[in-house]
């Protein structure tokens, strides 16, 4: 099994701007790539987690006597067995490793067991006797905000309350439109289930953990705190990651696995089933947003006012940051001076929510785009025209007072999307698989109506609000071969190929070896927030440039030239002022040049109490147009085509970019018409792939994508992050298309059949 590898391709050089092939492509297509679930160790035990069946209950008693009697059971651990800090969390440490006296959500861990076989684990968990006293379930955001509701946690029932007031908040427009929007709880549903393998050091002095995660160093910090160990005693190695989308940013099985291994002195593997995965990681925040948009007679936005409520569930995770993103993006990609906005992230006994691709902006966008369509109707303008009249430009000021100094081609995104040809009118034969309903084949072609809808969005890139964000990378050049070392989690996005492209371009080498991704180098930060191309890409770029400088010095010294007049051209070093041309492979023969580079982005600030401050680093924009066919009798939807133009800065790898766009669109489609974790008073109703439906190859629409390529001077490679924008405004575009087809004022997503075909 080989996860890091070398690729040499001499025919055409796979530099920046080409669709270079992934170095892990061979292993991944041959079944050789080691996912975290593939690791096994000699003498290994299996671990499993006992979870609460109730959303809110007091633990009256726990009796593990019968479980201990089961042959093969090696250890059972509870809250009292956590040697270090009892809680963890990305922003606030409020989530217990194991519940102590009370459980606050269905699926909260209470104990873990290690045994010789997964089946023994299951039997042991079933044999632990727990007496619960069920408590009233706080499942409603408004009740959570109400100060008279008893707190379900010592830190209270509101994770964050934030407002934004800007310009003249009392201004009144000629045209006012108002709406309330609901967003369901989406699951990241990565395909590769959570799995980890922990190896204890002799005598329990430390531990090594192979795990699929988005952020090795942050995991290490939280694990070390809970184990009561110094961070350097905890070593993390990235196991192959089968997708992430935000769900691997929080701790899930990391601490449990390490504790079991340290307790038994043997390697322990924990692996979730799909059902446990639904309980084991955070989800996208469900929410409710109410907005009132004011415009003048010409359709110019004058003010946005309203509120946003996001339900964070039982523990903090990243709720406060998601809320910041949510409220600061309620403006949308539109110029406007005046606002009065208020937002809450609540704590309830619902499943904990945190990071998912789009991070608060998905929710905001669903609401502001619904509003733009209402405004278009009220003004008698087309959806395109109302958006063009308000499209944000570089230099515009946000409600937070921050000036958008990123490239901001909003109008261009809209125009280029609009210029993409519409698909042919439907010509369905009966039983056609293209009909709404797909292989269900239930639609009658005569009931089908076509609709078109729009969505445009703005998305911040990188972390916000003063977070000291950095990424480190090391480059070693020896004998014409570059070796790169970084802790950047490759979760499928393709950073591994980008890193090689950067090194080939800067150094003129063809062979780029990737070292193991682990904690033996400084943090790369998280693979999230569309940040790794910018952050880790910047770090690799910086390290390669430092190496190149030193190589130039060597060559200049030998040839008695000024190093400043040397350059890399293809695979050669050339003298820009003279005849010298020497291959990099030759120039670096016998040398070993190594440099490490730490990339930081410019600092940001926290918002003040009125929501003012330069809280974000940079922004990207995108437009989506959806065409849908709706069976109005059965409430079935077929998304026929998504047209999109995305602001990407410089294109670094066209096919990888397209993969991000198409994959993001499929996830946004999921949120629009099929994906929802159904929660009833804290109880999750559909934790399986038979009841939580993901888009299949038949559901995926035709995608016509245009990258808007405008070099971003703020970014190290001129490239913006591209991971999140594709999944943001596609959801409101699809829902708008359904409104357009049905004439119904649908205000929630996902749109269910009953929202289309039953009386409202």
């Amino acid at each position, binding site marked *: 099994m080989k996860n890091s590898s070398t690729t040499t391709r001499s025919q055409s050089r796979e530099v920046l701007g080409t669709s270079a092939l*992934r170095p892990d492509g061979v292993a991944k*297509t041959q079944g050789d790539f080691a996912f975290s679930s593939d690791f096994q160790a000699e003498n290994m035990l299996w671990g499993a987690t006992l979870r609460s069946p109730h959303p809110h209950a007091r633990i009256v008693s726990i009796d593990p006597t019968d479980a201990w009697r089961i042959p093969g059971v090696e250890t059972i651990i509870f809250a009292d067995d956590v040697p270090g800090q009892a809680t963890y969390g990305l922003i606030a440490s409020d989530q217990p490793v194991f519940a102590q006296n009370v459980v606050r959500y269905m699926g909260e861990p209470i104990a873990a067991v290690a045994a010789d076989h997964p089946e023994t684990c299951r039997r042991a968990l079933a044999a632990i006797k727990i007496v619960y006293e069920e408590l009233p379930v706080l499942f409603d955001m408004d009740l959570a905000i109400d100060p008279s509701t008893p707190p379900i946690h010592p830190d209270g029932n509101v994770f964050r309350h934030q407002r934004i007031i800007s310009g003249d908040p009392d201004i009144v427009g000629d045209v006012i439109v108002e709406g309330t929007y609901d967003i369901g709880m989406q699951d990241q549903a990565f395909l590769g289930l959570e799995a980890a393998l922990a190896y204890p050091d002799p005598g329990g002095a430390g531990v090594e953990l192979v795990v699929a995660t988005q952020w090795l160093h942050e995991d290490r910090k939280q694990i070390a705190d809970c184990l009561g160990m110094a961070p350097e005693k905890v070593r993390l190695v990235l196991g192959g*990651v089968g997708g992430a989308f935000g769900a691997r940013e929080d701790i899930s099985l990391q601490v449990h696995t390490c504790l079991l291994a340290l307790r038994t002195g043997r390697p322990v593997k924990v692996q979730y089933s799909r059902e446990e995965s639904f309980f084991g990681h955070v989800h996208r925040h469900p929410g409710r947003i109410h907005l009132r948009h004011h415009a003048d007679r010409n359709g110019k936005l004058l003010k946005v006012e309203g509120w946003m409520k996001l339900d964070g569930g039982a523990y903090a995770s990243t709720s406060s940051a998601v809320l910041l993103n949510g409220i600061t993006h309620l403006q949308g990609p539109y110029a406007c001076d005046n606002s009065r906005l208020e937002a809450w992230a609540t704590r309830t006994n619902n499943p904990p929510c945190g990071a998912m691709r789009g991070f608060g902006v998905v929710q905001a966008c669903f609401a502001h785009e619904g509003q733009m369509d209402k405004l278009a109707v009220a003004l008698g303008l087309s959806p395109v025209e109302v958006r063009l009249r308000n499209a944000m430009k570089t230099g515009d000021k946000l409600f937070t007072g921050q000036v958008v100094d990123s490239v901001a081609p909003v109008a261009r995104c809209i125009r280029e999307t609009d210029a993409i040809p519409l698909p042919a009118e439907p010509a369905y034969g009966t039983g056609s698989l293209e009909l709404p309903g797909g292989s269900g084949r239930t639609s009658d072609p005569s009931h089908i109506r076509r609709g078109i809808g729009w969505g445009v969005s703005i998305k911040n890139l990188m972390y916000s609000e003063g977070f000291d964000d950095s990424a480190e990378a090391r480059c070693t050049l020896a004998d014409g071969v570059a070796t790169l070392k970084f802790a950047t989690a490759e979760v499928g996005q393709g950073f591994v190929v980008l890193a090689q492209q950067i090194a080939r371009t800067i150094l003129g080498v063809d062979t780029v070896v990737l070292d193991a991704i682990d904690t033996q180098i400084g943090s790369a930060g998280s693979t999230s927030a569309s940040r790794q191309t910018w952050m880790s890409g910047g770090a690799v770029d910086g390290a390669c440039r430092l190496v190149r400088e030193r190589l130039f010095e060597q060559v200049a010294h030998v040839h008695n030239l000024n190093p400043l007049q040397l350059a890399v051209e293809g695979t050669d070093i050339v003298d820009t002022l003279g005849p010298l041309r020497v291959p990099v492979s030759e120039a670096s023969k016998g040398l070993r040049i190594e440099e490490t580079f730490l990339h930081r982005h410019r600092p940001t600030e926290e918002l003040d109490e009125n929501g003012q401050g330069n809280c974000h680093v940079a922004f990207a924009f995108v437009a989506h147009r959806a065409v849908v066919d709706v069976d109005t009798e059965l409430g079935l939807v077929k998304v026929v085509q998504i047209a999109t133009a995305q602001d990407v800065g410089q294109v670094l790898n066209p096919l990888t970019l397209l993969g991000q766009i198409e994959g993001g669109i499929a996830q946004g489609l999921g949120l629009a018409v099929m994906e929802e974790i159904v929660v009833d008073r804290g109880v999750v109703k559909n934790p399986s792939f038979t009841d939580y439906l993901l888009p299949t190859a038949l559901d995926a629409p035709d995608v016509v994508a245009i990258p808007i390529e405008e070099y971003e001077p703020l970014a190290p490679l001129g490239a913006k992050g591209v991971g999140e924008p594709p999944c943001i405004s596609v959801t409101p575009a699809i829902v708008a298309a359904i409104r357009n087809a049905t004439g119904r004022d649908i205000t929630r997503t996902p749109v269910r059949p009953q929202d289309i075909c039953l009386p409202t």
Partner: protein
Amino acid sequence: MKISLTVNGELRESEIEPRTLLVQYLRENLALTGTNIGCDTSSCGACSMHLNGEAVKSCTILAAQADGCNITTIEGLAKGGKMHPMQEAFMQNHGLQCGYCTPGMVMAAISLLEENANPTEDEVRVGLEGNLCRCTGYHNIIQSVLACAKGGN
């Protein structure tokens, strides 16, 4: 119980517990971890392999049921150090990101082309409907299969 079956051309005889699923047998007993598990409800297709030449989800079959059968997993496709054309096509056409769905997709796609050597894009979509991919949105996967059918990469 004792089972004997041919896996990737090799006769394997094993003593297993009757409850063992075929996918567990492949992954744990034979250490063939290329076949992945993405669900436990026969929904995702990550566990697809070939049973007597046909793509089957190995999470819904007991190893005992495969007794006497001929099995090919993703590890058995490459011959003499040369990748199967479908593997090559997925690699060349960016038909993967995280790669978790890839072994199952490749196995299902090979089966599809065996039944229909020259499928349309729609036929590929229908043929792969039982295999979920959360990363790619399927387009590059479908391009990979079409490219393989055309004989190019």
